[in-house]
């Protein structure tokens, strides 16, 4: 009895400590799976596409977040005051069109995440292009590869292809040709070419 009790509590402690508390997900997104085994970096600039076709932007790099927001404030003439900028920096993600930023910051009540309109991304008014431009402006001079490693696109399984295409378009217009997709890891199917490569020790990148 004592031994069993010991083991049980040991396991319990292990699982409690090992369980990484997921950051509260405001946007419910089920990403597709892939055989890729690279881990998602902690610091990332994440474009999230929801089922409904809305796009949200999360600026995960706290050191540059303020600069990016400042940059878009200037380039798109949003005329935000210092107080509004400070408030904006505290926002977890961006999910409103640029012309709504000011009014949404001055609202007394916060719009629930599910009711946010998302960043406009259709071909006539693709504000993602402006966002990516500001991001590249801020990271300009640094290592391009570092930025590419940080740019992530996360999408719901049921998001339609045109939305994804618009996101890709925003990158391309800013001469970014490499980015990453957030996926769930999946085992390599046994017997497939990749499986054979992995067995024979070939590096697949």
């Amino acid at each position, binding site marked *: 009895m004592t031994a069993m009790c010991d083991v*049980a509590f040991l396991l*319990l402690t292990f699982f409690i400590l090992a369980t990484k508390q997921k950051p509260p997900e405001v946007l419910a997104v089920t990403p597709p799976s892939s055989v890729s085994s*690279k881990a998602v970096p902690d610091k990332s600039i994440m474009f999230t596409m929801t089922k409904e076709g809305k796009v949200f932007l999360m600026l995960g790099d706290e050191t540059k977040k303020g600069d990016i927001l400042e940059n878009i404030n200037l380039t798109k003439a949003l005329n935000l005051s210092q107080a509004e900028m400070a408030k904006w920096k505290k926002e977890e993600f961006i999910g409103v069109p640029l012309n709504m930023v000011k009014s949404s910051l001055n609202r007394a009540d916060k719009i629930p995440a599910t009711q946010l309109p998302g960043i406009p991304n259709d071909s006539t008014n693709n504000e993602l292009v402006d966002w990516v431009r500001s991001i590249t402006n801020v990271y300009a001079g640094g290592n391009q590869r570092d930025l590419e490693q940080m740019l992530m696109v996360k999408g719901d399984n049921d998001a*339609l292809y045109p939305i*994804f295409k618009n996101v890709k378009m925003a990158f391309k217009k800013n001469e970014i040709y490499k980015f990453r997709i957030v996926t769930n890891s999946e085992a390599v199917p046994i017997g497939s070419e990749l499986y054979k490569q992995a067995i024979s020790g070939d590096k697949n990148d």
Partner: protein
Amino acid sequence: MAEIDTSSGGGHKKGPGVKKAKKLSTRVDLTPMVDLGFLLLTFFVFTTTMSQATAMNMNEPKEDKDQILKVKNSGAMTILLGKGDQVYYYFGQLEADKLSEEFKSTSFKEIRQLIVDKKKATPIDDLMYIIKSDSKSTFKNSIDILDEMSICGVPPGHYAEVDITPAEQELIRQTEIANGIQ
């Protein structure tokens, strides 16, 4: 388990009127604690998600109008993604008089074999998979097909995503109607 000796140290006799204090056992019943322990343990075992989010690299071609990729018809396989997780494909180029024979529909389950077969039958230099997504296909489809490419060991540079043409969209529509895909 450790026990505490509760018996009084000195063996002095109590008077006749003094009632002897009942010796209480210090052994605590551990069952509820163990129950709780296992309950929490099972909870954490089940809720821990082992699947970690991973990142897949995407390389987009540089848009360069002068450098249009020349693909040999013999080595090209065009894969089209439609709605309802449907996959369509054809080899080489579509010829107007043989549309129904060349334009075939399949599923994600079968496409892997087709990709592998094509890869085996074609010299590697000529091999090219052209992926086209219909506007009704999902993000999952796009990622799945790229994943399929890496599963089949198709080297980078031998597959590319290309915009769908109106003619192909029309073909997909017709096939969907014929197959009753909602």
